[in-house]
């Protein structure tokens, strides 16, 4: 059994599509938490004020909304463009089924 396991390990390596997807998923999670860590504190720090206070504004939008939502939204589009066109790998997605795997399935 152990010998059979070693044989498989010698014959196979991690699927590059799996490794690339995993790397991309980790980068996506990091981006998500960076934006979460920016947007919520900025909006709460500048926007959560007592009722009746004057609201500072930029271009007709409350300043907290401008800096805490609109600006990061624009930045998110650039980050998404970087991720899609410069970071994400163009992996082949066709089935990699090979006859040896069928033998493994039967064994």
């Amino acid at each position, binding site marked *: 059994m152990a010998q059979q396991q070693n044989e*498989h390990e010698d*014959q*196979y*390596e*991690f*699927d*590059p*599509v*799996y490794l*690339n*997807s*995993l790397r*991309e998923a980790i980068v*996506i999670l990091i*981006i*998500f938490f960076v*934006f*979460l860590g920016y*947007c*919520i504190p900025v*909006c*709460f720090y500048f*926007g*959560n*004020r*007592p*009722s*009746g206070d004057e*609201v500072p*504004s930029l*271009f*007709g*939008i*409350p300043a907290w*909304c401008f800096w*805490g*939502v*609109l600006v*990061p*939204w624009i930045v*998110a*589009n650039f980050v*998404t*463009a970087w*991720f*899609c*066109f410069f970071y*994400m*790998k*163009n*992996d*082949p*997605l*066709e089935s*990699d089924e*090979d006859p040896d*795997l069928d033998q*493994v*399935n039967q*064994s």
Partner: protein
Amino acid sequence: MDKFFNNSNAALLTFAVYILAVFLLAILSGQFRKKKSFLSEYFLGSRSLGMWAFALTFAATASSGGSFIGFPSLVYTHGWSLALWIGSYMLVPLVAMGLFSKRINQFARKSGAITVPDILLDRFKSPTLGLISTVLIVFFMIFNLIAQFKAGSVILQTLLSEIQLFQNAESTVQSTAEAIAKNGSVLEYFFGFAAKLPEAGQATGPAGYIVCLLVFTLTVVIYTTYGGFRAVVWTDVLQGFVMVGGIVVMLPLAIWAVNEQGFDLSSQLANQTSDLKYSSVNSYTTLPGPSDSMNGFLPFWLAVSFFFFWTFASASQPSNMVRMMAFKDSKTLSRAIFTVSVYYSLIYFPIVMIFCCARVLLPDLQASDRVMPEMAALLTQMIEMPWLAGLLVAAPFAAVMSTMDSFLLMISSSIVRDIYHKWINPNASEKQLKKLTYMTTLLVGFGAAVAAMNPPQFLQDIIVFTGAGLATCFLVPVAFALYWPRFNRQAAIASMVGGFLIHVVLYAAGWLLNGKMGPATAQNYRQILGNYQDSMSEGWYQFFNSVIDTGLPSLHPFLIGTFFSFVIAIFVCYCTRRPEREIVLKYFYVKK
């Protein structure tokens, strides 16, 4: 408004052109299918979606009636703080499409899967898991389908209310319903509703709703049944353009109209709309709701909850996962993610701006759910282009249609492919499956319409309940199935069932304690704690009280359910055997 709709033939004509275009696309896609294998083409479009089709079907399916009816209503009611509530849409394309798409597509190709349960069944070699996931999809989707039917019919009522033909149909339905309801049979449940008179101040009554439900059902069910997945995708593309077109036209008009009213846009609009007091008119945000807030701003944990909810719940909706199986190649995926990112930027933040303007332009609107058609009427009236209102009203209608047709097909594929073909008759011929598929799609569509005849009261609550429920059940099992070779079938079943139970328990507790659809709130937890104060030590009482004070129990049930689903998955996985070697080799390795 009335004056506008008295002259609404132009608007109706624009709308009719849109509906005709939808049918034309369905017919074309039906022709396309004749040359292909039925099941793969009908439910997955032969895995050949290009960039525009994939991007817009994903975007349009995710944008339901909530985006164009419920969300504008919330913005009108609560003001700018809704920009933060919806803010994580800036990352939805990246997270929802980037996190799982490539792996799901690869899994589907390796296993020949055409549904989500197909993938899970093959990844874990567990018919039980396949069946559980099918049942959960059907359970949640049917609820959602009924809610979408109602939303579509309500929008149609706005457009047709002043048309003579519609008014005649309305009175015929009302008199027929009165006659049937008088007999006191079981049909009274449905027809008793239709026999009621319109409420004061409303243009159409329940009978009008039934007429619109019938028109809406015939439209959507017929084109979905005939055209299948490709029709749904092609019409989604059209609907996607209609939605963004409507918003892009409305934004400059709304800003111009506010200026015409003499507002200094640089400061007055911000002040007028930034500090609106929350009211209880809409419970969509009470998970926990903004009504907990003292100064009109979002409660902190609500903002955090929804930042997670929009992104990760979108990633784990089975209807979105089906689309992830259908794109052509990786290049299509990367281009589509960017396209949807720009698309959502053109929709969601502009909606916040438009309906903050609506607060200035229509300050005394009582029924905030009608703010979208009211704004469409007002703006097109101001520029004297009534035909444009047809396009603007078509935008929310398109949003409902594009979501509903996808859900309809999803339920149909679950019944035909995941239940009948796998469990009842694995040797069914293509002809039998084709016949059954058409019948199932028709039956589910008309069945949901019958259920919507006496419409559910809590429309948005149902949409949130089902969306969060599916996400809680599927996010952790699917994520681990795709990325963790050690993940096994026992852990997948436990995390899926665990997530489902926690979600349902939180909602059931909310229902029992508050008498309405929604999860238990911090106040409920405090009441429960108060009841048990005598039977616990002061230390424990203080501890639980301080936990409630942090606001953590008020997190969205999606986050609580997902957290427990995650813990259960890891615990059960390490307590049980590793998965079979051949499964791990198939999905995580290639030959050197």
